[in-house]
């Protein structure tokens, strides 16, 4: 084949595959918006579901997802940020940091259904917490721990060496330097990691289906109660699809995706803003 013809064909193919990827996103989003926008209303967001999800809204599910994500962040943020500070400030690069990082990467790769099995066997059954918000939130917290740990580590490493040395030279102790120099400068990077974790935790179904979720539209009174959640409610609506349930399923999916895309996108914008400011 003619070299120039080949060049042209391949470039067209490269452009084509990029366009196709954009098309996939547009297809999924427009599918959700076209089918789901009709279900959205104030009532849909603030009422409890009736007739096993065929009528009514999704208020308990929104609330449940909010509770679960809050507990997940309260679990993952202290452990992840603390671990990252240890890796960057207290430990020289070596075997220990390698092991910790390998552990985080391994945990990151564990399939979500395995977290579900583990949460059920350990938290629900062995620790006798029962199927409740606490069990589900902890399970999600373990799942997003690696995300928080690795993004915080990156943010802490980006703090210029000179700033830390300046602080030490003025006689500050290590803890003072961490509190007054390192943490304020890496704050937005750490927040980015937490928001990315929130986006992931809010959309996961498999880890909470045995550990926290119920179908009854009952508002939980404490963290020891089970709850409805957006993803599990969506799963139930879709798997028993009647026309009314499907309409509400589209609405639920649209709300879930909007929550996740807004949190994820704000994290990405924050990260871009933050890296630009560091380089300056």
């Amino acid at each position: 084949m003619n070299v120039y013809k080949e060049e042209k064909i391949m470039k067209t193919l490269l452009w084509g595959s990029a366009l196709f990827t954009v098309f996939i996103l547009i297809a999924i989003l427009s599918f959700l918006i076209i089918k789901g926008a009709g279900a959205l209303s104030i009532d849909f967001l603030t009422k409890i579901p009736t007739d096993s999800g065929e009528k009514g809204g999704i208020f308990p599910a929104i609330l449940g997802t909010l509770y679960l994500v809050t507990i997940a962040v309260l679990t993952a943020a202290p452990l992840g940020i603390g671990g990252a500070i240890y890796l960057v400030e207290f430990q020289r690069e070596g075997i220990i940091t390698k092991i910790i990082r390998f552990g985080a990467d391994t945990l990151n790769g564990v399939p979500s259904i395995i977290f579900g099995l583990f949460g059920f066997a350990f938290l629900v059954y062995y620790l006798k917490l029962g199927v409740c918000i606490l069990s589900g939130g902890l399970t999600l917290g373990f799942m997003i721990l690696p995300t928080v740990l690795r993004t915080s580590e990156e943010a802490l490493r980006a703090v210029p060496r000179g700033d830390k040395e300046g602080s030490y030279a003025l006689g500050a102790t290590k803890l003072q330097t961490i509190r007054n120099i390192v943490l304020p400068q890496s704050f937005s990077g750490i927040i980015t990691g937490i928001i990315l974790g929130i986006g992931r935790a809010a959309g996961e179904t498999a880890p909470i289906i045995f550990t926290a979720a119920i179908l009854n539209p009952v508002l939980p009174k404490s963290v020891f109660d089970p709850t409805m959640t957006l993803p599990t409610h969506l799963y139930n609506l879709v798997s028993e699809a009647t026309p009314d349930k499907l309409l509400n399923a589209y609405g639920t999916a649209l709300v879930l995706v909007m929550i996740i895309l807004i949190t994820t996108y704000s994290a990405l914008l924050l990260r871009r803003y933050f890296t630009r400011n560091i380089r300056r």
Partner: protein
Amino acid sequence: MNREKLVERILLICALSAIFVIFLIIMFLFKEGLPILKKEGLSFIFGRFWEPSKNIFGALPFIIGSLSVTFLALLIAVPLGLFCAIFLSEIAPGWAESLLRPVIELLAGIPSIVYGMFGLIIIVRAIKVSIGLPTGESVLAGGIVLALMILPIIISISEDSINAVPRAYKEGSLALGATHWQTIRNVIIPSASSGILASVILSMGRAIGETMAVVLVLGNVEMIPRSIFNPAEALTSVILLEMGETPVGGTHYQALFAIGILLFVIVMLLNTASILIRRRMR
């Protein structure tokens, strides 16, 4: 000085928490699942029939189900993802890059249950109508949905490794009179091949471990699929579908944890291989 030591201890505990969780996961999976694996031995892995009511537990249909969906997904997503990565790092003008990057990030953010719903309502129906199957729920539908899901991982890791190819290699090839595509094919892709391989292996692990997208489109029939137009059931689906209806501690419960062990071991091997390849690259 004492206070600093105390803080250091606490932070060390935080840092070790991820490893601690991994150990707990392994401990509880094996505590519940190992007895039946020991008892049934290889017949658990190679058994062709899964009938919990008769105490027959053979996981082969699910292993084949998971593997066939995964390979089909790779077959679709690897060429597409690799081309997107080449596009991003080699030929995209600024505006196209700043359009495509957020698209990939948003695709990675869409939750798997939504991919599953999209698959069930659009892809399954399209397969049913266009091929004329009695039901569109099939290995083919699962492969397409999984391909969409793993596309962002393949693109971002392959792109990293393409960007890591030294500039001089590319310039040398162009200076010798090669065209841009010849340079991509003969210089850039071979030099980036280990990173591309790492992305393929990692996304294979993700695909095998994926639950919600697959369970809605595969049809969930406990039989070995004969072709990509047959329904199937994945390892993850069995756990999700049967966990709710089984008494804690019984044989069926243990068998589901044993499936969890199989899944965990497969995914961990793939992830570790991917991490090692990427580490060697650096």
